């Protein structure tokens, strides 16, 4: 008996018990769709994190205290000074540009409006390094830094809130009760990055680093950004910066140099574990679905004992019956798997509506789901099919 024959027979007998087949299918549908949905959640999270990280800047590296370090946890360390940062830049030829970021808070006033703001002290390279676009005016220049000019660049949103339709460029505002001139407005929107800081939040105001240094009375830099000359030398730049840190601060310094790659890798590992756990949870429901298939196939074999006897009397070989019942359970699982793919996609899209990531349905997860459901069909179909094949024809014929 050919395979086509077996498939047709299988469809026939599944059609004969529509409700039962549908309920059994449901188990597989839920199993496969939950595997696909769960894996898609993991993939979506991975996609989001890696795109957020690559959106941080081009060939970006950053140096900050290693928060896993014991001394850092206790606060027994001093951040790098601007002078140390400059020396590092000289020691790392693969680095094209560096910008410190000194941070403080304060209040900004304009006419009768006021905003609580975060003040970022940066230099002229910051915009490039972080790949942030400028909407209007200009960014902080080297002279602004050298001369400690009180100039500020604000976000697009803040410009709208404060100045409405008036051109903000050249307007004077008060920050921490000092006069600043607005020289630039950042481009539109950029999603807030939760990985390192909120540098691009809309209440962030950029001023020359020297101005913040004066406000704080020190020049300790919590975060130092660097840009490699080329995507290919990012890891060279990373090594050079690490070596520079050792030269400047000694071998036991509490800092770490991170690149987007190392960040992606780090989060990738976490997300892979997370995906595996989610996929595992999905697989459990597929397993339960498989047990349902086995259960119903056993019922079906018992119910059709007489049919098996007739087929045997008419010359069916054991192999024919084994194949017939095995293919029946495989068909059950494959049909369930197909619906599972559809519902899994739907589930992923639905979650993407609420979650901050897109629905990522990989062909791999579909392939795995289909392969897995066939596998389930075989594993849970073998025993009932074997039972059918082994029935004694006389007993089977006598069965009522």
């Amino acid at each position: 008996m050919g395979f086509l024959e077996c498939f047709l027979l299988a469809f026939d007998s599944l059609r004969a018990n529509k409700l039962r087949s549908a309920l059994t299918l449901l188990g597989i549908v839920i199993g496969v769709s939950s595997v696909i949905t769960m894996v898609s959640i993991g993939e979506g999270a991975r996609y989001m994190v890696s795109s957020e990280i690559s959106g941080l800047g081009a060939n970006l590296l950053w140096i900050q205290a290693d928060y896993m370090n014991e001394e850092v946890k206790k606060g027994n360390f001093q951040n790098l000074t601007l002078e140390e940062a400059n020396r590092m830049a000289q020691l790392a030829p693969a680095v094209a540009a560096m910008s410190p970021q000194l941070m403080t808070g304060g209040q900004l006033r304009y006419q009768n409006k006021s905003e609580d703001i975060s003040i970022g002290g940066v230099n002229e390279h910051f915009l490039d390094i972080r790949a942030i676009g400028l909407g209007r005016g200009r960014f902080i220049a080297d002279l602004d830094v050298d001369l400690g000019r009180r100039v500020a660049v604000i976000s697009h949103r803040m410009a709208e809130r404060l100045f409405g339709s008036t051109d903000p460029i050249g307007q004077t505002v008060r920050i921490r009760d000092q006069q600043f001139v607005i020289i630039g407005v950042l481009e539109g929107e950029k999603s807030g990055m939760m990985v390192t800081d909120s540098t691009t939040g809309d209440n962030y105001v950029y001023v020359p680093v020297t101005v913040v240094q004066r406000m704080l009375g020190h020049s300790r830099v919590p975060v130092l950004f660097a840009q490699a000359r080329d995507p290919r030398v990012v890891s060279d730049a990373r090594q050079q910066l690490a070596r520079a840190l050792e030269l400047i601060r000694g071998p036991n310094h509490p800092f770490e140099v991170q690149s987007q790659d190392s960040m992606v890798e780090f989060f990738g590992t976490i997300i892979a574990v997370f995906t595996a756990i989610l996929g595992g949870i999905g697989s459990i429901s597929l397993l339960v679905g498989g047990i349902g298939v086995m259960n119903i196939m056993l019922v079906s074999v018992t119910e059709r004992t007489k049919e098996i006897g007739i087929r045997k009397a008419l010359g069916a070989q054991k192999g024919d019956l084994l194949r017939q019942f095995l293919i029946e359970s495989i068909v059950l699982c494959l049909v369930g798997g197909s619906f599972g793919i559809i519902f899994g996609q739907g589930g992923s899209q639905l979650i993407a509506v609420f979650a901050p990531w897109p629905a990522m349905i990989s062909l791999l997860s579909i392939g795995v789901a289909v392969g897995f459901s066939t596998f389930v069909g075989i594993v849970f179909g073998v025993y009932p099919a074997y039972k059918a094949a082994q029935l004694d024809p006389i007993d089977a014929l006598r069965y009522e």
Partner: protein
Amino acid sequence: MIRVTNLSKIYQTGSIEVRALLNISLEVVTGEFVAIMGPSGSGKSTLMNVLGCLDRPTSGCYQLDNLAVSTLDDKELATIRNRKIGFVFQTFNLLGRTSAVANVEVPLMYGGVNRKARRQRALEALAKVGLSPRAFHKPNELSGGERQRVAIARAIVSNPAIILADEPTGALDTKSGTEVMAILEGLHQQGLTIIVVTHDREIANHTQRIYHFRDGEIQYIEEVKNRVIAVADRVS
């Protein structure tokens, strides 16, 4: 040709030994129409199972057309059932979900005949039992007599050497029973070997020879003198 020599079938149920068949020897030549009669428990069904290759004898020899059946394995027995034996059961034993013609096709399917040839041969077999107009009806849409005729079509579709009919009229009214016997008579006239198991003397009278069974043994063999030849006008 069927030749059975010193055939015994002994079941062991717990500590009790059931001797279903004891040293049976018989010979049915190709083209003969014979009956096996006896009360229930006389061993006639067991003999039927052995002759039908559904069961193996405990001892003795069963030869079917020069094949020593007692030495064959399960797989070969299934092939013999498929090619050489046609079963007709008391309760028809049709597959309920499929049409008459699909039922008739089943032995050919297991015999590896392709779809087209199968359909054609099945329709021919149904024509032989006069059921062409009902070929695409399901068993539950057919009368008892019609169902048994489908079963006969199924039994003859693979051109078997023998037809084994186990109480073929047991579940039928007299008229349908006569029709079925007429079909068997027709097949006999075409040269098929037919063995009917029955406890009904009138049915046995259609055959040429009757083996009377009792307690697993052949009590006596009777040559039928005044054979009843069933004729049913509906059947070609």
